């Protein structure tokens, strides 16, 4: 045997079936005593769990920093990951296996710095490998890879090592920082390899690493102890988590994309079967199966034609086995009748798949998961941990029939728990909003447990160690990021639902700070409404809302100040102003700590001013009428003034429209008002009448026919005619003659109304 000085380097792509297959073959052949795998060296202790029988891929290693801002890195593994197969091989053969890359703490630390650095970097004009491949063969990198490396390459190891070298050569296309990071990683790995070589001979050592690093590892020198000490690091935690193919395809952390995990698994299966063409048959048959299951008519003849076409397409590219793109295009043409839309769902189902990995009970459970399960038990929710949806009804009030303090408020605590899960993005409980929304003590939730939920819980672990802490953290981040009053108010109402008083108070403080800066009238009103609701319904959740009062007072006062200036607007904008006024009035009547006097004063000002939008004035007037600030006499004078001949008739009519929005009955019962209106109409000449008619019609359009009857009665009284006659005229359908007159109005020039 020749005495070899360097260990075997096996370059791989991180998620490559052929790589995994060839690697296992290579390991069988060389039978090393130790396998070194690229992966954070502090993950070593998790290897035992990875090898347990109950562990089903896909799963992922997850590392995250302990302190905010939180950084996460995820290393997903599928059954066809070469690294996973390497670990399994070592376990099967009772050989040693180690991870040799930088510890995750260091990774996370440099990852963060890199982000900052990359923002400053300029575009480099060297061609990335993908562009070069596209130019040379006219195919996308993924397709090229599949065709040439996964299927065709005779010596996989050689081909991949060469590929890695080529990427390295076009390295200029990567950022400077990236290159530096890779250098450090390679020197560190080299050091780990050298450590291993102290115990094992080189011909009994295999290193599994990304193809990119192969030539780097051949040429670099190892880090010294001193250098290792200077590596930056942040405190971090690591765990195993179940993963799903969906996640793998949508956001795999690796640069090596893997858009079709289910399909890649088929490739892995066919390699294990020793029949490379099996993938194509499998894929197209599964597509046909899906189509049939979903109401499509897909004949076996079509399946055969699809495979024939795919093979011909591959053949035109000089390959024997169709690639995914060949298969896809053939399926579209033969099964999908030329339309991608007909088969796109089948594609997604068969390429991405719904597979979700699982881990043995109790393996690497994060503090978050533990807290979650304790809470489930505490709140007697364990029976709801099932795949089918179950409904639970909560009564948030104190249960007086229970003796123990613990269960008196169990439903309330459940509600808090569910709401917190919602904030953390864990879809375990969904609130079924009841029709009777005002009954705040009653809630209905749908509970459903899916494997995806477990993943969401692990992901939520990055925010904190318990459901409560993580929720608090998420709220804190939201508050820090908030850029408008609306966002903060949303946090407040959510935090109230979650029963998190501290967060509520913090949010109220930042709301106060925000409201000092200029904000619009509408926003103020909306926020006040939210706060007011929280005050109103806070008691059922035992949230102390006394902190709200000074802030609400302040905001209310601000609204009073800006009200008049907000009313100087056109007819489109005035609608929002009016709804804000209505909200503020409700806030004022709901909360006795609000300064009503100031509110009334401002309303009076708005009602009597002539330089603001008259509709807003009218509306202010109607609120004041309702609050009995104005008497009937004062109203009649004002009506007379507003509707006098000097006023442009459109302004007058708009004012009347504003006045009549709010409360029809208060108006109907005031006879004097109708007298004035009647007088006013009498004073108009034809032209003005037409102009006013439009507005008046609009004003009365919201009245019911009963109300119109009553108005008719009023007017009948004034004009001295029988009420019934008037009512008939008002409520009757438009005659042809009248229609003509109305039609002629269409041509009437309303100017710039």
């Amino acid at each position, binding site marked *: 045997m020749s005495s070899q000085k360097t260990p075997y380097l096996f370059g791989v792509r991180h998620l490559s079936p052929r790589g995994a297959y060839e690697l296992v073959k290579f390991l069988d052949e060389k039978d090393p005593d130790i396998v070194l795998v690229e992966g954070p060296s502090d993950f070593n202790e998790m290897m035992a769990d990875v090898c347990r029988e109950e562990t089903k891929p896909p799963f992922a290693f997850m590392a995250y920093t302990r302190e905010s801002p939180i950084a996460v890195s995820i290393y997903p593994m599928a059954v066809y990951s070469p690294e996973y197969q390497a670990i399994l091989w070592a376990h099967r053969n009772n050989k040693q296996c180690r991870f040799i890359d930088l510890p995750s703490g260091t990774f996370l630390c440099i990852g963060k710095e890199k982000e900052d650095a990359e923002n400053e970097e300029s575009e480099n004009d060297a061609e990335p490998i993908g562009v070069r491949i596209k130019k040379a063969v*006219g195919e996308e990198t993924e397709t090229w890879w599949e065709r040439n490396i996964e299927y065709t390459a005779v010596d996989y190891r050689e081909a991949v090592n060469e590929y890695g070298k080529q990427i390295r050569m076009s390295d200029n296309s990567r950022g400077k920082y990236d290159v530096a990071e890779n250098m450090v990683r390679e020197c560190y790995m080299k050091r780990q390899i050298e450590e291993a070589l102290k115990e094992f001979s080189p011909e009994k050592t295999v290193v599994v690493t990304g193809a990119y690093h192969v030539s780097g590892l051949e040429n670099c020198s190892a880090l010294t102890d001193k250098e290792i000490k200077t590596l930056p690091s942040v405190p971090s935690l690591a765990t195993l988590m179940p993963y799903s193919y969906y996640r793998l395809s949508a956001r795999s952390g690796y640069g090596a994309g893997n858009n079709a995990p289910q399909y890649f698994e088929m490739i892995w299966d066919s390699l294990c079967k020793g029949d490379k063409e099996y993938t194509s048959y499998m894929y197209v048959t599964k597509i046909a199966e899906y189509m049939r299951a979903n109401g499509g*008519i897909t*004949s076996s*003849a*079509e399946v055969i*034609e699809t495979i*024939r*076409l795919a093979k*011909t*397409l591959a*053949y*035109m590219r000089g390959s024997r086995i169709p690639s995914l793109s060949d298969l896809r*295009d*053939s399926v579209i*043409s*033969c099964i*999908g*009748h*030329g*339309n991608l839309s007909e088969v796109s769902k089948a594609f997604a189902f068969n390429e991405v798949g719904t597979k979700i990995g699982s881990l043995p009970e109790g393996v690497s459970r994060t503090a978050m998961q533990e807290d979650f399960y304790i809470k489930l038990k505490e709140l007697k929710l364990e029976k709801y941990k099932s795949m089918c949806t179950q409904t639970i009804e909560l009564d948030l009030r104190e249960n007086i029939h229970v003796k123990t303090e613990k269960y008196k408020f169990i439903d309330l605590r459940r509600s808090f728990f569910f709401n917190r899960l919602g904030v953390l993005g864990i879809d375990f409980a969904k609130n079924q909003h009841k029709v009777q929304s005002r009954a705040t003590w009653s809630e209905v939730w749908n509970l459903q447990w899916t494997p995806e939920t477990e993943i969401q819980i692990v992901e939520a672990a990055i925010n904190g160690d318990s459901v409560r802490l993580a929720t608090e953290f998420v709220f804190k981040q939201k508050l820090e990021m908030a850029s408008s009053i609306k966002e903060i108010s949303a946090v407040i109402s959510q935090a109230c639902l979650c029963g998190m008083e501290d967060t509520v108070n913090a949010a109220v403080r930042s709301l106060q700070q925000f409201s000092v800066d200029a904000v619009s009238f509408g926003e103020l009103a909306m926020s006040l409404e939210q706060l007011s609701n929280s005050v109103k319904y806070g008691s059922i959740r035992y949230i102390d809302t006394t902190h709200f009062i000074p802030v609400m007072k302040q905001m209310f006062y601000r609204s009073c100040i800006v009200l008049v200036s907000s009313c100087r607007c056109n007819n489109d904008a005035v609608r929002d102003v009016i709804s804000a006024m209505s909200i503020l009035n409700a806030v004022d009547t709901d909360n006795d700590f609000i300064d009503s006097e100031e509110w009334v004063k401002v309303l009076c000002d708005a009602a009597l001013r002539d330089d603001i939008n008259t509709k807003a004035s009218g509306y202010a007037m109607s609120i004041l009428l309702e609050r009995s600030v104005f008497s009937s006499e004062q109203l009649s004078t004002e009506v007379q003034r507003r509707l006098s001949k000097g006023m442009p008739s459109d302004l007058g009519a708009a004012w009347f429209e504003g006045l009549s929005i709010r409360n029809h009955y208060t108006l109907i019962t005031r006879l004097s008002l109708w007298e004035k209106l009647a007088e006013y109409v009498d004073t108009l000449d034809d032209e003005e009448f037409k102009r006013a008619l439009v507005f008046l019609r609009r004003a009365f359009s919201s009245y019911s026919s009963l109300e119109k009857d009553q108005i008719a009665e009023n007017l009948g009284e004034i004009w001295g005619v029988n009420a019934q006659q008037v009512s008939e005229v008002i409520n009757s359908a438009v005659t042809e003659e009248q229609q003509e007159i109305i039609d002629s109005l269409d041509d009437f020039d309303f100017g710039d109304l």
Partner: protein
Amino acid sequence: MATEFQRLPAEQLYQEEIDALIANEKDPVPTGWKMSPKSVLKYIVGGKAGKKVITPKYIGNDRLVEICIATLVTDRALLLIGDPGTAKSWLSEHLCAAINGDSTKVIQGTAGTTEEQIKYSWNYAMLISQGPSEQALIKSPVYRAMESGTIARLEEISRCASEVQDALISILSEKRISVPELSTELPAKKGFSVIATANTRDKGVNEMSAALRRRFNIVVLPAPSDMQTEIEIVKTRVEQLAGSLDIQAELPSDKVIENIITIFRELRDGQTLDGTQKLKQTSGVLSTAEAISLLANSMALAGSFGNGKISDYDLASALQGAIVKDEAKDADIWKEYLENVMKGRGEEYRGLYKKCKELNA
């Protein structure tokens, strides 16, 4: 090439290119084909054969052409579907020209097409005098294609009545036509296939039966996906047309082509290119082919009646004709487009805008 004919079939027009490709053939040639699938692809999407430059015939997604060729290699029939003016017939003609050197075995589908035209018919005088015989048989293009192992083309298949379409079903699956009158049967030679084209948008078309659709590999040809591709297509085709039609006028400038394509794309998509303004769509399709004929038309106008340079007036009247198909609706849409979009476009469109407006006054 100077000729007395209005339009030569593709294989004659591009004879030299086809010869060069055959001369430089390196890959295996399927039975009944004149060149390898790779060379067919090169003939259609362009490239080089030895020293001869092969002009691109179809500009767009090369992959679609690849699928078409692969379909024909597997002896499956090919159905090209797409909006009017997406180069369906064009592609079908060139595929046949490259594969067989003959694109003339065509059946033009109409509402009046009969089953005999797809299978065979008789010379009745002869039939009556001699009785059924080989000589009295009039072979359809499909019949001849089966006999010679080549490709037959069926244009506008969806315009044929359903019964007539159905005649194809057995031909495509059995690959033979029986002639009971002569008690013989014609089996198709290797290399026989059918390329059909259909458009889905026009009025007066018949649904294709599922049975027939199943016998085709279907390729949907899209409208040019981006502005640049469309400009390139129009430019190439207008140059070729101007050459073959002997139009004595200057070629339209790049700017003019770009403006016309902009107007077409905006009205076709129902929004401005930058996506900020919504527009009404016209009743016509406003295809790329229409843009090509519009420009050729303008050149003819300029050459015959003008100073040989396309003027704004020529363009305006051609646009009017292309866009306003349905007088009542389209005219309003076009007027609205002129006022709301074109007017604000500045100097570049000023002249064209004025002329268009005059025509609509």
